[in-house]
């Protein structure tokens, strides 16, 4: 029994790094995702294509490959062009790459949310003299946000799980902690059972939260 608790404890010692990367990456993802979503909805074809390519690339390649490009590839490219650059702190590289990766998924979530708002809302906003930006800011985005909140929380959950691959670029987060411990003690079973437990201790409450938000939304939709 004690060995299992030890396994959980070891995994938990990486939780701060995992959470830190996930939380900041989602923040980056939401901000960049909003820009990407608006870009993909742009009436200028070239802008639309550029952002579509961005989304396709990020959704069509594994996160671990993107992490390798960011952590190892980008510094090499810059150095070969005479710019002295290296990641002093790999956690920053990891957060940035997860944020960029997340922005592609968040963009699709936001786009879906914006397009779910009735066309009449934009017309009503414009009819009282708002310009397009004001209508988006005061009328469309606040309503869309309510719709996309559950999906955004789901994105947080999947990103949290995805961060496990960051052990590939020497980030010592939950999974990496367990791997190191398992390697030195040969206690693979308690080690990785502990890893799974730690992820579940966050993902289960979060998905309960999503279910709750969805129920509440369904209720308020009925009454309107």
């Amino acid at each position, binding site marked *: 029994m004690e060995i299992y608790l030890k396994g959980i404890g070891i995994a938990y010692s990486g939780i701060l790094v995992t959470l830190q990367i996930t939380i900041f990456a989602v923040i980056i993802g939401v901000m960049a995702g909003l820009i990407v979503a608006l870009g993909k909805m742009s009436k200028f074809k070239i802008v639309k294509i550029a952002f579509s390519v961005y989304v396709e690339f990020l959704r069509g390649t594994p996160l671990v490959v993107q992490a390798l490009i960011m952590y190892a590839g980008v510094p090499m490219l810059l150095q070969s062009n005479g710019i002295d650059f290296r990641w002093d702190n790999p956690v920053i590289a990891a957060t940035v790459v997860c944020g960029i990766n997340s922005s592609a998924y968040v963009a699709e979530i936001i786009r879906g949310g914006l397009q779910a708002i*009735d066309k*009449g*809302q934009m*017309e*009503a*906003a*414009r*009819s*009282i*003299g*708002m*310009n397009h930006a*004001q209508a988006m800011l*005061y*009328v469309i985005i*606040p*309503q869309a946000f*309510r719709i996309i909140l559950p999906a955004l929380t789901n994105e947080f959950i999947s990103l949290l799980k995805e961060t496990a691959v960051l052990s590939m670029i020497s980030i010592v987060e939950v999974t990496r902690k367990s791997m190191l411990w398992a390697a030195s003690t040969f206690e693979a079973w308690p080690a990785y059972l502990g890893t799974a437990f730690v992820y579940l201790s966050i993902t289960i409450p979060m998905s309960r939260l999503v279910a709750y938000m969805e129920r509440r939304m369904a209720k*308020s939709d009925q*009454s*309107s």
Partner: protein
Amino acid sequence: MIKVVNLTKEYGNLKVLNGISETIKENEVVCVIGPSGSGKSTFLRCINFLEMPTFGSVSIGGEKINTKDADINKIRQKLGMVFQNFNLFPHMTTVENVSIGPIKVNKIDRATALNEAIDLLKTVGLEDKADVYPSSLSGGQKQRAAIARALAMKPEIMLFDEPTSALDPEMVGEVLEVMKELAHQGMTMVIVTHEMGFAKEVADRVLFIDEGVIVEQGSPDDIFGNPQNERTKNFLSKIL
């Protein structure tokens, strides 16, 4: 006040408006009637540029609306619009719905705008609903709130796009009452409606639109009492 010249609207091959020319004077109340799909709503939506005309021009108070350098947001403030489906903002209370335009567009300070909004809600009989969300209003109350929201921008012209068509029959009266009151105050109004009784009573002029053209127009007495065109007669005989 409103001058429309040779207004044409096409969606691909479908001609919805087929060269409408019309002038609406200040203080005039004009009701637009016609079969569904005749283009009457499109006519209204072209006036405030929610639809972009394919050809022709629209001017409001002498300012052309569909030119490159027209400040459409500025001109739109002269035009209040009331929609069939209310289109209230569901995430704002009634009083916030009414005051958002003055606050965000006209940059009026919040307290003043809220006071004016309450006054407007009084005139449409909704002062006790100021702090509730649209989801708890009845259809008639929603539409009255929507009228107040449009009036808050102090428009010179009010456009109504089938304002009672989405309402339960017992709620039509309360909305028409508010509109009558507006007409008596001298508001310039263009109303697309199926309420012929209302048109008869309130309109200075009735336009009958079919297949994208104004087939016939005149005083309510002429149009309803003595229609000249076959299509007008046919339409009226079906609905009266």
